[in-house]
């Protein structure tokens, strides 16, 4: 092995080896036990032979002085060498074959080669091997010259002081100079900051604008002309309160705000695997979410049900089933690939979503290493991972195992045991056989044996399909249930094949660090739900009230609603956020009470204005001196157009007409792709992960693959083309024209009706004249275009109405 090393080095090595204790230190030593002091000869060897190689070939990327440290690894200190980077310790003293540094320089693994530009010489490699074999002796680190990586510890102390990890306060609303303006304590927080900056809130908006704003905001639909007029005429002192209560009580409220929750939890009706397999039962979870918003289920209970509903006690069989369905939240986590081996990515998606949607934290940044910016060690990530790994997720099927399994039957105990159990047992038995057979099919190279196994697999699958067809009628939930409780081992650098220390199941250190009690029998999901919904948890309530605020005002108090960590934006009104959060807790986690509080404030009644002076001082409107104008989102555009044309079916949606399971042959070659058109509200349209619903995609629909905390508002030529040329717009405008001509015979009144339906206001006189002139002119143009006499009036109206429904006045809310 020392063939290339010259005699002088050999001499040094001799000294070195004899100077060391005969016993080679193991892996444990690397982390815990300090090395004995190196001898002078060892130091000389290190400085003359080892350090030059490291300095010339490694330090430019792996030292404290590197312009950018790669892979979290520094090699210019003992601590750095022994702590290593993402792959764990760079050297294991005494064990060159187990040291990633040696593995890398040997260039044996084409994908793990260092230095990347050119291999070390054979001699250099031997020096490093010899050095590691001898225990990697070197000088101790100078404590003064701490590597920048050492800053991680100090950063985490700072990060722990970050505002969002501090307990929620209950501040008193501040004093303001203008005592007349505030309608709610909320307004005092807003006004105090405006006054402190020498600014004024915008004047109150008119009632027409307000009812249009509030109706879209709470229900996603425009107010009817009758609703507008009734509100304008209402002189009662509580006219606003009654309007708010009516909208909050309407079933459309849950469809609107449920959709916002579905954005956060990246709801879809397909799994996201390579064949994008349908999840036909997922709709039950969607409807559950809508129902919970309508019932104003306390938010803590809503979260508990979604994380551990199957483990909660229930008052009735109906409630038990709903709570099982609720865990669809976890079950709809994204699927990857065509095989089951990539399930760790699904669990990562679960943790990522729980972190962002519920806690406002980017926990999944700690999958491969400690979080770079927030106080979340990697062990915390795997503490959560263990909880979900101990649960059984419904399986949607994939290209390879194309049959769904582990769904939860929605039947009572009696029927389950007496009637269904034999079927389910047989199905589980078949599943087990299939899972045992498939790897054989794959492993065997060619030949008869493989064909034989393939035939067995096919027979089992056929039998399973027949069994499925013969099942008695009952429902399934795409849900989770308890699995085998196990603590998981940390995946080094996020690689599930390189395992490190065990991470006991528990919660984030920064939020309490509770562990699943050893005596608790299950996965720990129920305990987790309790930690998350603990009123002392500083994040859960703050994150939720910020979301509600964001949807009402267009911007959150924290503008990065999914990231309350140190990389997120700090709150514009920190006391207001805490006041809202503590009030939310006082009112029993009621989201409807929170809406009421907010939309009845003077802040929410501000007009949307352009004020150059305020715009110059606060161009982003962080202090809230005006109401933020907004474009309707994708669902609002489609639903409002359908509502106005009269085509909207207001009834709740059910399951989608997916083909039966036994016909599924989806693969990455021929993934499931379909549309199920429906006149119902957009929340009920079938949503896929391999591509967005085509119409909604044009107007920035939520990504079904990752948590969406705010919709983008893009302006693209594709949207303009949609208004000009899409069949949907042409059909709905024609339908509206028919509706109007049937309902309103007089053309002038028809224009009035159209404006009231689309914009919530009557037309001005000039607008009526413009419309009449347009209808006359377009009639000529239509005649020139060859449109027959009998079709022209309808075509002319349709043209006019389509323009109205494409206008900014329709598309934007003031």
């Amino acid at each position, binding site marked *: 092995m020392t063939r290339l090393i010259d005699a002088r080095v050999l001499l040094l090595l001799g000294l070195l080896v004899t100077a060391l204790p005969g016993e080679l230190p193991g892996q444990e030593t690397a982390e815990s036990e300090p090395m004995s002091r190196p001898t002078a000869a060892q130091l000389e060897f290190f400085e003359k032979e080892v350090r030059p190689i490291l300095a010339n070939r490694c330090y430019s990327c792996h030292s404290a002085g590197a312009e*950018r440290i790669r892979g979290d690894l520094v090699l210019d200190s003992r601590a750095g060498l022994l702590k290593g980077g993402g792959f764990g310790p760079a050297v294991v003293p005494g064990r060159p074959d187990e040291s990633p540094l040696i593995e890398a320089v040997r260039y044996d693994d*084409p*994908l793990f080669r260092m230095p990347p*530009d050119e291999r070390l010489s054979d001699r250099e490699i031997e020096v490093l091997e010899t050095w590691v074999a001898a225990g990697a002796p070197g000088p101790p680190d100078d404590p003064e010259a701490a590597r920048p990586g050492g800053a991680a510890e100090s950063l985490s102390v700072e990060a722990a002081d970050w505002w969002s990890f501090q307990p929620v306060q209950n501040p008193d609303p501040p004093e303001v100079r203008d005592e007349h303006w505030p309608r709610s304590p909320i307004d005092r927080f807003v006004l105090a900051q405006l006054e402190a900056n020498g600014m004024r809130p915008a004047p109150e908006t008119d009632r027409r604008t307000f009812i249009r704003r509030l109706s879209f905001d709470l229900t996603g639909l425009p107010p009817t002309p009758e609703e507008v007029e009734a509100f304008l005429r209402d002189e009662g002192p509580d006219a606003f309160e009654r309007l708010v209560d009516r909208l909050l009580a309407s079933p459309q409220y849950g469809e609107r705000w449920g959709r916002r929750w579905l954005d956060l939890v990246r709801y879809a009706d397909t799994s996201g695997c*390579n064949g*994008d397999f349908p999840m036909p039962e997922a709709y039950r979870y969607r409807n559950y979410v809508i129902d919970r918003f309508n019932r104003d289920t306390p938010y803590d209970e809503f979260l508990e049900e979604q994380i551990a509903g199957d483990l909660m006690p229930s008052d009735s069989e109906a409630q038990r089933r709903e709570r099982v369905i609720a865990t669809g939240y976890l079950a709809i986590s994204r699927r990857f*690939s*065509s095989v089951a081996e*990539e399930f760790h*990515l699904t669990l990562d998606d679960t943790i990522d979503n729980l972190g*962002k949607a519920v806690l406002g934290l*980017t926990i999944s940044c700690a999958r491969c290493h400690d979080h770079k910016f927030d106080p979340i060690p990697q062990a915390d990530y795997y503490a959560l991972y263990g909880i979900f790994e101990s649960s059984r997720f419904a399986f949607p099927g994939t290209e390879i195992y194309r049959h769904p399994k582990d769904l939860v039957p929605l039947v009572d105990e009696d029927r389950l045991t007496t009637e269904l159990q034999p079927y389910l047992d047989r199905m589980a038995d078949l599943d087990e056989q299939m899972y045992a057979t498939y790897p054989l099919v794959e492993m065997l*190279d*060619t030949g008869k044996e493989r064909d034989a196994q393939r035939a067995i697999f096919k027979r089992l699958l056929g039998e399973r399909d027949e069994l499925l067809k013969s099942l008695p009628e009952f429902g399934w939930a795409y849900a989770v249930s308890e699995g085998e409780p196990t603590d998981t081992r940390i995946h080094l650098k996020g690689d599930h094949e390189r395992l490190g220390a065990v991470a006991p199941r528990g919660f984030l250190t920064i939020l309490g660090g509770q562990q699943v009690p050893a005596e608790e029998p299950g996965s720990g999901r129920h305990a987790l739900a309790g930690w998350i919904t603990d009123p002392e948890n500083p994040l859960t309530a703050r994150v939720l009230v910020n979301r509600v605020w964001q949807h009402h005002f267009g911007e959150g108090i924290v503008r990065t609603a*999914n990231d309350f*960590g140190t*990389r997120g934006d700090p709150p514009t009104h920190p006391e207001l956020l805490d006041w809202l959060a503590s009030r939310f807790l006082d009112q029993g986690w009621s989201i409807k009470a929170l809406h009421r509080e907010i939309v009845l404030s003077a802040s929410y009644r501000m007009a*949307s204005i352009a004020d*150059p002076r305020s*715009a110059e001082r606060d161009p982003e409107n962080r202090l809230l001196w005006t109401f933020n*104008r907004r*474009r309707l989102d994708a669902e609002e555009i489609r639903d409002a157009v359908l509502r106005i044309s009269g085509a909207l079916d207001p009834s709740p949606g059910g399951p989608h007409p997916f083909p039966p399971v036994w016909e599924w042959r989806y693969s*990455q*070659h021929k993934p499931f792709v379909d549309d199920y058109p429906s006149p119902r509200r957009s929340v009920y349209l079938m949503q896929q992960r*391999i*591509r*967005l619903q085509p119409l909604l995609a044009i107007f920035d629909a939520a*990504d079904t*693959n990752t948590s969406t905390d705010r919709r983008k*508002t*893009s*302006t*693209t*030529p*594709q*949207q*303009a*083309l*949609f208004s*000009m040329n*899409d069949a949907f717009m*042409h059909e709905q405008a024609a339908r509206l024209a028919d509706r109007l001509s049937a309902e309103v015979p007089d053309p002038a009144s028809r224009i009035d009706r159209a404006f009231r339906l689309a914009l919530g206001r009557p037309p001005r006189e000039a607008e009526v004249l*413009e419309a009449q002139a*347009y209808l006359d*002119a*377009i009639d000529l*143009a*239509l005649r*020139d*275009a060859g449109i027959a006499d009998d079709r022209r009036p309808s*075509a002319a109206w349709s*043209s*006019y109405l*389509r*323009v*109205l429904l*494409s206008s*900014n006045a329709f*598309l934007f809310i*003031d």
Partner: protein
Amino acid sequence: MHALPNRRQVVGSLVGGSLLLPGIVSELLAADAPAPRPDDPLAPRPPHFPARAKRVIFLFMTGGVSHLESFDPKPQLARDAGRTHNGRTLLGPQFRFARAGRSGMAVSELFPEIASCADDLCVIRSLHGSHFEHFQATLGVHTGSLTVKRPSIGSWVSYGLGTENQNLPSFVVLAPHLPYAGTQVWSSDFLPACHQGIRLLPGDEPIRDLKRRSPSEAVQEMELDLLSRFNRRHGEARPSDPLLAGRMRSFETAFGMQREMPEVLDLSGESDATLALYGLERGQTDGFGWQCLVARRMAERGVRFVELIDSGSSNNWDSHGAMKDHIPRARSVDRPIAGLLKDLKSRGLLDDTLVVWTTEFGRTPHTDGPTGRSHHPYVFSSWLAGGGVKGGTVHGSSDDYGYFPAEDPVHLHDFHATILHLLGFDHERLTYRYSGRDFRLTDVSGRVVREILA
């Protein structure tokens, strides 16, 4: 480049004879150059340093083209064919290689026409970093991410450079069939939606809603005029709102696109010689030759990134059973690709257009079906041509059987870093802040392959 009719001529010609009221069309006429506003995310902007290429034509072969039968000759594999290696039966190369060009580059007989352009190609034989499944590997080649969805390379380029022609999308995808991973392949993901690839299909309506549905141009112009008046009145009461103004402008762009796109797709002005170069019959509007010629026309008109996908998630290069299944696939792309390279070159466009030819992975040196090969992500071949790369060169190599990189491995991140470099970007600085951190195409790695830069 072609002398294009200016904006006034185009708009003027379409207005001629109609009974237009003053409105959107007069606004169009007022602005001769469609100067994008500075706040427009698609306004052209300079890269980090002077670029070698201004645009990219990205040729993606779906299904996994065998490196062993295309650009990476393996005489040792031929000699050891039929032997067992690690329990698998080695399959010798199923096609012959011949030396081509002055460079003497070895190219398989599957690609005789591309071989005639060998001196313009820079072949990389040591590409790796892919995944063994089509879906993930396809995403990896496009986004640098094998698992979760990320912005496509075309979206990154559009984000970095904007576009030169506001009437056309900055990132166009000509994909007659949906590839693996569907539209995620050209998704802008967290980048602004204007950087999304716009898929163009052969046929009557190449882009959704591109075709005028109103019964005549005159009717549509009146509709746009009325809309413009609605929006202007609405905007006057709501001054200085960029969203409202932006939406008004978007109708101008859409109108421009509705005019210009059919013109780009109208090949009637191309000479017989040009059509022959691409292997196209006059009047033909499909096939890879059509895609390639349209790509040249897009490149001429300032489209920043044109991606051509030759086939879809079935009937592609995925030759598990027999390597001879590569023959029809190769036949359908060989002449068009060579035609594109020659045409770009003769028009002087190849100097600042980077042409990239790639696939999601190579194929195994051992058999799968009797004479076919399975997926092989550990090493495969791709090539670059034009804008700033050394033609007639081969970079990197694989081992004797073509299992792993042997010399100068090039990771997909390196491949992407190099493409961005040629466009004038430091790939580490082309970033976008999302979810609390700065993301980039090359994740946390990537090294520019300087050896192949001209």
